[in-house]
């Protein structure tokens, strides 16, 4: 069964699915017909259809009336519309103007990224990675203290403080200090066990 829109066509141009399909095509070409944009052969076929189809004739009449109204009401559309609409348009532009370059820049980035979700995701990933690496660099990563003997010589005052020494198992280490503990030299002397 045809739908409600084409029921009248069903009645006026005869039953049959092919007729209904052609009827729909003709109806869609009515606008082009009114605007004089149809090919001569298509125009002839449409006029033949219009002779038999009351629904399409009615639609054609409505389109012609609408076109006539538009032509009558807006002989010079720009000249008539501009004085009325322009002040409002200007007010909206000025009212919505960004307060500064920074705002415009933020808006530009926002619009650019909003329209490109992949770019947004990639940008967010890159910025997150950079922030994380920055935090990681700022964070003081503790180094495990060697579990060897701890020697502290006047911490905070001496030029050199040996805080820990861990020799390999077959070696020993001595921390030697020259006569002046604060300004003198500190030597970690490593020797093989047999030499000690």
């Amino acid at each position: 069964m045809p739908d409600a829109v084409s029921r009248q066509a069903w009645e006026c141009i005869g039953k049959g699915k092919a007729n209904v399909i052609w009827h729909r095509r003709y109806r869609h070409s009515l606008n082009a017909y009114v605007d004089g944009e149809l090919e001569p052969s298509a125009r002839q076929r449409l006029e033949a259809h219009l002779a038999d189809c009351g629904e399409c004739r009615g639609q054609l009449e409505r389109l012609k009336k609408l076109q006539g109204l538009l032509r009558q009401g807006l002989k010079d559309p720009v000249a008539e519309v501009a004085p009325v609409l322009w002040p409002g348009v200007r007010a909206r532009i000025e009212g919505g103007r960004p307060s500064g370059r920074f705002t415009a820049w933020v808006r530009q980035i926002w619009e650019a990224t909003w329209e490109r979700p992949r770019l947004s995701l990639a940008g967010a990933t890159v910025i997150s990675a950079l922030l994380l690496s920055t935090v990681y660099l700022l964070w003081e990563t503790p180094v495990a203290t060697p579990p060897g003997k701890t020697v502290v010589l006047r911490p905070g005052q001496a030029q050199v403080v040996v805080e820990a020494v861990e020799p390999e198992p077959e070696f020993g280490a001595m921390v030697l200090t020259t006569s002046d503990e604060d300004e003198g030299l500190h030597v970690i002397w490593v020797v093989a066990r047999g030499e000690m």
Partner: protein
Amino acid sequence: MKPLLLVLAAFLLLPVSLAYAQAVPIEVQVIQASREPSGAIDPAIGQLVRELQRDFAYTNYRLLETHRGQVSPQSPWRTVIAGGRDLSVALVKVDGGRVELHITTPRVNTRVSLHRGGQPILLGGPPHGPGVLIMAISAR
């Protein structure tokens, strides 16, 4: 798009600049101490040798090599000194004018705290040729 590029460039360079700001220059002087007849002493180690001569019995001190590098919290510095020995220096922390270093050589691991620009820590003892090696490690 220029501001966006500038901000991205700043973000990219920020970690690099922070790492560079925390980098500590390290200098290692590799000295051979021996009981050979005393010779001319390199002026670069003159003061050091004078102090060593007070307490050590070596008569000859010869500057073999000088290595310079940088350490930062995330990047230790490694070098190979005389005799093919690996030397690694890692920055543990920077506290005002002091730096705490973790020094690793084939025979000893040590953690020392040095004044930047102050006295070096000396690691000595490994035999080398007719004498022994002494590494003077300082932070700048």
